[in-house]
């Protein structure tokens, strides 16, 4: 899949190392236009300021978790159609169900590889395009 240079992604994680990993892997996939945030509150501010084509968020963050961010996004008329991928170490069944109920587009469990990231991005964008 080729990405337009205007294709903008926001990545959210409280670990700067993970933000750096995601940014590098996205660059290898061909996504260069990447913003980042270290928590849900910060991300929501950016999401309401700039248009984004994809949200990739961790779950376990303070003060706003990834799950709370997902709920805020889905409750916002302007943001609710944005694909949202949860990338998290939270791999319990209850977490997957809660994320799905909140409207997650896909779910990646950490640690993950570049191929999984690419496959999930392509999957959510294909669903949005359909």
């Amino acid at each position, binding site marked *: 899949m080729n990405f337009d240079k205007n294709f903008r992604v926001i990545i959210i*994680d409280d*670990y*700067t*190392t*993970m933000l*750096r*990993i995601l940014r*590098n*892997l996205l660059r*290898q996939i061909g996504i260069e236009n990447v913003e980042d945030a270290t928590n849900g509150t910060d991300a929501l501010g950016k999401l309401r300021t700039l248009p984004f084509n994809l949200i990739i968020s961790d*779950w*376990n963050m303070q003060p706003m*978790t990834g*799950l*709370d961010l997902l709920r805020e996004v889905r409750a916002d008329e302007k943001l609710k159609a944005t694909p949202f991928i949860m990338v998290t*170490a*939270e*791999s*319990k*069944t*209850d*977490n*997957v*169900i*809660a994320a*799905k109920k909140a409207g997650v587009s*896909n*779910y*990646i*469990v*950490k*640690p*993950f*590889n*570049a191929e*999984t990231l690419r496959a999930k991005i392509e999957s959510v964008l294909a669903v949005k395009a359909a």
Partner: protein
Amino acid sequence: MNVKTSHPPLELGQAHTYLERVIVKLKTLDARQKQPLVEILQYISDYIGRTRSEICALRPTKDGEKFSSSTDELEEVVQETADAAGSIMTAAEAIEAIALKLPQPTSDELMAAVTKIYEASAFQDITGQRITKVVRVIQNAEKRIEALLCFCSDSELKPCGSGCGNHGTPPDDTLLNGPQTQKTANSQSDIDRMLAELG
């Protein structure tokens, strides 16, 4: 059942002293059937004494403050691994920049190796979350022990800190468990299957 008394609540130490006084008084009585009662009360008194000694032994010593120093050490580990992961990433990014200038297939081979380094660097996130989880458990235990240590002081029992009791934990908190052990974790394919089933 709440028993209302006009007496203020006793500290463990005071209660122990009162019990000892009761035993002494009982021993002076001339009642024939007092012996079993004295033995039971003496047993309870000894038990309280031993428990109190054990609780007081938990008090951090001069070279102690064991919990605080342990959590500090663990937080240092998190910071050091973060720094190390940052250095690894910087080196990998430099290799990637050079790889892009090289001819095929050398460039692709180097890029594949760099991708593996990026993927592996996620260890810092996982270990960091696991260590943070342990730090929270230790800090919680420390708060409980501090509350128990109040039994050893002469002052009134201090109210518990935020770590005590249920303060209306929101349901979402039960979902913040961090990385699971290999035995309990759902794999990516398990999660894909669950999502597909959930529709």
